[in-house]
C-alpha cells in the first residue's frame, strides 16, 4: 500500500515553500537576503521552485561588507545570471564613506556589526517591506526563539520579549508603513538537513565549503584565512593548512575548520561527527554570551 507519510526533508521543503509563497502573497515589496552561504543558497533554490515556471517575483539583496571572499562574489554573480534574478547590493564601504557607520578598530575589528545599518538603509532606500533570511533556529540560542514571521518596528528592531504569537501556519504579516518583517523560511532546518538536501537536490556549492589548502592564522583557536583584512599580531604567523569553511561570512571573522572533506557526502559525514557547532568557528558570536541577541535586537540578519 502507498504510504501517505511525507518524509521529513520533504516536509521541511513543503513548509519552506509555503512560507516563501506566503511572503509574496502578503507583502508588496519583498526581498531575499542572499549572503552566498549555504543557507541562503538553499533558500534561493526553494524560492525558485516555489514560483517555477515563473521567474522569481523578488530581487536578491546582498550586503557586501567589502570583506567578502572573492569565491563568494563569483558564485553569487554566476547564480544570479543562471536564475535571471535581479540583484541589489548594499555596500558597507559606502555606509562608512557616507559617515553612517564608523569602522571598528582593534585587532578583532570586523564589519559584521556594521552590516545592520547598511541592511536597514538598503531596505529603506528600496522600500522593501519583508526580507527573507536563511537564519535557522538550530544555529544559535537567540535564533532558537525566532518566529517565522518576525515583526520589526520602524527602527528595524526586534523585541524578543514581546513577539506576536504565531499559530499554526497562519502568518500575520500586518504592519504599519515604515515597519517591516524578517521572514525565516528555513527556521526548522538543521545544518544536517541543509547538507542532506544539497546532496539530494544536487545543488552546486561554492568551493569554499570543500577542503582545500590555504594560508591561515590560528588566533585563539579560530583559524582565519589570509587576506588583506587580517593583520598578524606579534607571535602569529601564516601557516598552510588543509581546511574548509562550515559557514561563510565576512573574511575578518569567519573561522575555517581543518578538514579533508572534499565532497558533499564527506561533508555530511563530518557534520555527523562534529562535536562543535558550526558557529563555534565564528569570532562574532564569541564577543559575549548574548552577542547574537544583542545584534538581532538592533536589526541584524
Amino acid at each position, binding site marked *: 500500500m502507498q504510504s501517505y507519510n511525507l518524509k521529513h526533508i520533504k516536509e521541511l521543503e513543503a513548509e519552506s515553500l509555503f512560507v516563501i509563497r506566503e511572503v509574496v502573497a502578503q507583502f508588496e515589496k519583498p526581498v531575499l537576503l542572499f549572503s552566498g552561504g549555504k543557507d541562503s543558497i538553499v533558500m534561493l533554490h526553494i524560492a525558485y521552485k516555489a514560483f517555477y515556471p515563473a521567474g522569481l517575483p523578488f530581487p536578491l539583496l546582498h550586503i557586501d561588507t567589502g570583506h567578502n571572499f572573492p569565491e563568494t562574489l563569483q558564485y553569487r554573480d554566476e547564480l544570479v545570471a543562471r536564475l535571471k534574478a535581479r540583484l541589489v547590493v548594499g555596500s558597507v564601504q559606502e555606509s562608512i564613506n557616507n559617515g553612517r557607520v564608523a569602522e571598528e578598530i582593534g585587532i578583532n575589528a570586523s564589519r559584521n556589526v556594521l552590516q545592520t545599518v547598511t541592511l536597514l538603509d538598503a531596505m529603506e532606500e528600496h522600500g522593501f517591506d519583508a526580507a527573507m533570511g536563511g537564519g535557522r533556529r538550530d544555529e544559535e540560542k537567540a535564533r*532558537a526563539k525566532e518566529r517565522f514571521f518576525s515583526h520589526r518596528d520602524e527602527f528595524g528592531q526586534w523585541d524578543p520579549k514581546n513577539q506576536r504569537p504565531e499559530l499554526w501556519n497562519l502568518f500575520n504579516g500586518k504592519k504599519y508603513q515604515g515597519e517591516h518583517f524578517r521572514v525565516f523560511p528555513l527556521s526548522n532546518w538543521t545544518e544536517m538537513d541543509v547538507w542532506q538536501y544539497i546532496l539530494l537536490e544536487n545543488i552546486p556549492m561554492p568551493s569554499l565549503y570543500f577542503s582545500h589548502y590555504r594560508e591561515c592564522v590560528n588566533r585563539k583557536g579560530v583559524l582565519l584565512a589570509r587576506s588583506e583584512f587580517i593583520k598578524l599580531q606579534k607571535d602569529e604567523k601564516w601557516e598552510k593548512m588543509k581546511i574548509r569553511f562550515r559557514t561563510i561570512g565576512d573574511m575578518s571573522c569567519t573561522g575555517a575548520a581543518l578538514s579533508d572533506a572534499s565532497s558533499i557526502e564527506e561533508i555530511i559525514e563530518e557534520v555527523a561527527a562534529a562535536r562543535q557547532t558550526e558557529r563555534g568557528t565564528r569570532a562574532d558570536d564569541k564577543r559575549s554570551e548574548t552577542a547574537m541577541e544583542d545584534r538581532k535586537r538592533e536589526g541584524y540578519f
Partner: protein
Amino acid sequence: MNKFSSNGYLDMELLRFTTAGSVDDGKSTLIGRLLYDSKSIFEDQYEAIRLTSERRGEEYVNLALLTDGLKAEREQGITIDVAYRYFATPKRKFIIADTPGHIQYTRNMVTGASTANLAIILVDARKGVIEQTRRHAFIASLLGIPHMVMCINKMDLVDYDEAVFEQIKKQFQTFASKLNVKDIQFIPISALNGDNVVDKSVNMNWYGGPTLMYLLETIHIGSDLNLVDCRFPVQLVIRPHNNDFHDYRAYAGRIAGGIFKPGDKVMVLPSGFTTHIKSIEGPDGPVKEAFAPMSVSIRLEDELDISRGDMISRENNKPEVSQDIDVMVCWMNAKKLQLNGKYSIKHTTRDARCVIKKIHYKINVNTLHRIQDDKEIGINDIGRISIRTTQPLFFDKYQLNRNTGSVIFIDEATHETLGAGMII
C-alpha cells in the same frame, strides 16, 4: 547502519512535540537532559552553559540554559518565549518546542503547541496537578494534539516513591477523562538526574513502562493528518510572463487535507464551478498524486476565475461555507475580547473581518465547567463565541482538520495577534 547515511536520514519520520506544565516544573531541564543524554549537544554549547552555571554559583550544570537563550530568561531563571530545538535518533527526527509555564506567557505556550503532534506535560511530584497544569492540558487538547505524555518530575525529591506517582496519575486521569485526548501515558522521571528520560531509572524498579525517549521514538504518528477530505486553499496564482509558458496558469498552495490526483473532478469555492485537475506540479516536477502537507501547484482543465483565498475541493465533499461561525477562542491579549467588537481574521489563505456576535460562555480550566454568568473573555481565558464574517469562510470543524478549522484574530489598530480560534 550509520544514522546519518543519506538513505536512512532522508527516510526518517518527523515528530513535532511541545512541553507544557506550570512554571518551574522542569520543562527546560527535561529538554536539556533529553538533548544531553541523546548526545545531541555540541561541546562548545555544553562548555558555554557549564561556564555560565559555574559563574552563577550553581551546583549543577544547568541544562535549562540550553533552551533558555534570552538574556531576560537567564536573569530570571524562567522561560519567556518558545525555544525550538532539534535532534535526531536513528529512528526519527524531532522538532521540540520548549514553552514557558508562567501564566503571563501562555500565548507563547499556545504558539509552540499549535503545530505539535505530541505534548509532554510536566508536573512537580511535590506539588501535583495544579491550575496551570490543567490549563495547559486543556489547551493541548483543544489544539487537538493527539498524544499526551505526562511526566511526573522531580521524583528524586519524593524518594522515588511509587505512591506519589500513582496518586498524581489518578488525579490527572480524573481531570483528563473530560478532555478530548486519544492517548495519554504516564512516566515518573527526574529531569535533573536523567531517570527514565533516555536511560531507564535504577531508582524506580517498580516502574515497568518505557522511558520518555523510547516513547518518543515509537509512538505511532502516521495517521494524524486528515487524508480523507480534499481541501486545497489557493495561496497564489502562478502565471509566468515568458514565451515558453505562454498560457500557463497554476494555483499554488499547501494541501490542507485529502489526496488529489490528475483527472479528479473538483469544485472551486466560492464560485461553485466544477472542472478537472489537468496536472499537479510538485517541487520536483509533475506528480501522480499529492496529499497533505505537500506544497504543490495545481493546473485545471478549464479557465476559471480563481484567486488567493479560494478553495479547491470535491463536489460531494465540500467544506462548510458560511459567514456565521462558532469558535472556541483562546484569548492572548490584555485587551479583553469585545462583544460586538470588530477584528481582522486569517483563516487558511483567506483574510476577512468579523464582528463578535455572541459570547456563550467561558471555561473554568480547573473544573472544565462552563461559566455562564461571567462572559468577560480576557487574557488567558478560553470561551465559546459566535462570529459573523464579512465574507464566507470555507471551513471544517477543527476536530476534523486543524488546517481548515483554525482562525486567528488580529487587532485592526495595532495588528497584534490577539486570539486563537478553533471552529466547532
